[in-house]
């Protein structure tokens, strides 16, 4: 499941739409089951999107030639200004 191409808000709004539709009823059994399956999948996609960031805190460092690199943030104790 690649979550990169999914936008959380879009997935969530589709999920809400499905839930409302299912709650409204008036569906054939096949439709209800298809929607249910899609909905459950979307809850998984949502959770996955929420969990996929690694929680990295990095500091942007620029050398004299203007090249950019990243290094892990250590709490800001050694860099001054």
């Amino acid at each position, binding site marked *: 499941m690649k979550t990169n191409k999914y936008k959380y808000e879009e997935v*969530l709004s589709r999920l809400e739409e499905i839930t409302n539709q299912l709650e409204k009823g008036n569906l054939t*059994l096949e439709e209800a089951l298809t929607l249910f399956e899609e909905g459950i999948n979307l809850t998984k996609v949502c*959770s996955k999107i929420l969990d996929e*960031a690694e*929680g990295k805190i990095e500091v*942007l460092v620029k050398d004299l030639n203007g090249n950019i690199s990243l290094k892990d943030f250590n709490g800001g104790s050694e860099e001054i200004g």
Partner: protein
Amino acid sequence: MKPVFSVSEVTQIIKNLLEGSAFLQQVYIKGEISNFKHHISGHMYFTLKDEKSQIRCIMFRSSNILLNFNPENGMKVTAFGHISVFEKTGEYQLYVEDLEPEGVGDLHIAFERLKAKLEKEGLFNPARKRPIPFLPRRIGLVTSITGAAVRDLLTVIKRRYPNANIVIAPVLVQGKEAASQICSAIGDLNNLGEVEVIIVGRGGGSIEELWAFNEETVARAIYSSKVPVISAVGHETDITIADLVADKRAPTPSAAGEMVVPEKNVLKNEIRQLKNRLITAAMSNINLKRQRLEYIRKSATFIKARNMVLNYRYELDRHVHNLFKNMKIQIDGKKLIFKSQVSKLQALSPLAVLQRGYSICQSFQSQKIIRKVEDVCIGEMVFVVLSDGKLLCRVKDRGKR
């Protein structure tokens, strides 16, 4: 013949000329106050002068009641207002809207001037402001890495969204270098990729300390950032040019942290609730179908139809049963008849007679049964048939009864 104008007409033309000049309609003028008069009407009349020139000024009551100092002769001030013509005397004058004692207001004036300029260029246009992404993949922070602002930001962001990805672009936030560092940090974060929102800010301070965020270069860097920018400068009450250009203004760095990420717990709960609703809804969908089925099964029509089938089946069973029963009766009857026939037959059988001690006499020659004495001659051979065999006998005598 050359056209001739009235004084009023020419005065009007001059007035239109002056009022048509954008420069003269929003102008800051510094000079020294002289001929100051605070008229009984509440309006102030004075002259602003320097070594070479002077301009007549009027400041209406509605404007001067807002002053927090009392202007007086000899005072060096900066006046802001527009220039127009007082038609009655034909004199042009400055209609003063604001007045600041010199020195105090320099930064303020610079601020107002830049604000007016950028506003005119459309840098503050609300229509241009971009939405802040709901769930930024990576958040850029442009601030001092040692300041309170970065700590507040990190604390709030981590509390709300523990696994948020953050890149800090450390800059000086005050002093001569600050503006250019802020500008290039915004550029660097734009080039880094994956940064979906940038927070530019610092903690509170004096107007001088916050000044970098009022610099034109910073305003333009924020404006040209492809990534949406949240400004978070100082406290609630400090409004900087950066705040006006930014896509969103946070009153404090902590508030920016609140804006930039949603609370993960809340989102997780929301998903859980949706999942529960889904399951409940799916179950009730199925239950509804089951109930409908049950209802049909219990409906009069269905029961009638089912009973009809059951009745037919019962009838059929009965017929089959009867068929078998009748068949058995028939067969039993036949069997009985057969048995009695057999016993009848047995009674008639000569063998049975022989068993009882009778015997049959047969002519040896003709094999005919001998029934009368005359049927044989003396000396003739006959068979006497007994129950277990035959005897061959010769007739010695015959006697009639």
